[in-house]
């Protein structure tokens, strides 16, 4: 038996899945739900569903791809279940733009963006990723779900709207607000001269 056959044999054995793919699926889930406990639950559910459905696995894709597709579905189900979170409205109370007067639609003075000193390597900085993840975890559930489905997963507008039961115009407003909130949070946690992370 060559190494490839041995690996294939190992891959087909559910007892080895946690060691082979646990970390991958765990990181995959965290980068979409931004919470370690929820990610762990989703990974566990993924393995359980896969064990139950192993008879139906035809081997057309790798086990890793198959498990990822199950996890993707679990993540969307999680989004759908939590999309009607009543606390969302309370979390989304930022007023970035003026709502009345001659300057309606223009930046509120307190929310004017500052110019960031962007280092060319910053987008690959792990500490910056951690700050970004923390900021993502503070987004209201439905907003985070919409943002993640479009920005991280690359789902089409139609698919995202269908899964989350929102209109296309609502989708753009939510992604827009998600980005404004993320920008504000990152500015506070990374670029502010008061923060330790400031480079």
């Amino acid at each position: 038996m060559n190494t490839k056959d041995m690996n294939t044999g190992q891959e087909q054995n559910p007892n080895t899945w946690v060691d082979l793919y646990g970390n991958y699926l765990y990181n995959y889930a965290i980068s979409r739900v931004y919470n370690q406990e929820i990610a762990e639950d989703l990974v566990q559910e993924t393995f359980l569903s896969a064990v139950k459905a192993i008879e139906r696995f035809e081997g057309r894709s790798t086990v890793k791809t198959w498990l990822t597709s199950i996890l993707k579905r679990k993540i969307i189900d999680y989004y759908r279940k939590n999309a009607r979170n009543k606390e969302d409205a309370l979390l989304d109370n930022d007023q970035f733009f003026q709502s009345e007067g001659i300057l309606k639609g223009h930046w509120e003075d307190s929310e004017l963006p500052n110019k960031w000193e962007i280092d060319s390597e910053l987008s690959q900085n792990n500490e910056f990723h951690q700050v970004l993840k923390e900021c993502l975890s503070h987004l209201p559930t439905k907003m985070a779900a919409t943002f993640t489905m479009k920005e991280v997963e690359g789902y089409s507008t139609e698919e995202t709207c269908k899964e989350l039961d929102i209109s296309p115009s609502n989708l753009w407003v939510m992604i827009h607000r998600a980005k404004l909130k993320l920008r504000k949070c990152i500015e506070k946690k990374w670029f502010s001269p008061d923060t330790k992370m400031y480079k």
Partner: protein
Amino acid sequence: MNFFQKLYIKTIKCFIIPCERASLLMTKSEFEKLSFKELVSMRMHLMKCKYCRWLLDEERLISTSIKNNKFQIENDHYFINLSNEQRDKIKKKISE
């Protein structure tokens, strides 16, 4: 003011949008092609508003960071690993 001057002002006004609309179009343009009117309005706004230009750069950084993060995970570079306790818990559940 003659007819052409009035028409010119009317046309320009048609493309003037506030920061809220411009920043929403900036977000939308990352994923979809904008209509001609949307594109011209956004570009005209960006020409005159430094805050929205900064916002555009900063939102691009956020998008690039998210893509890099995704790429790293896809290439098995993990930020956090399951603890032995977590692994054992999941294995136990699977074997039940």
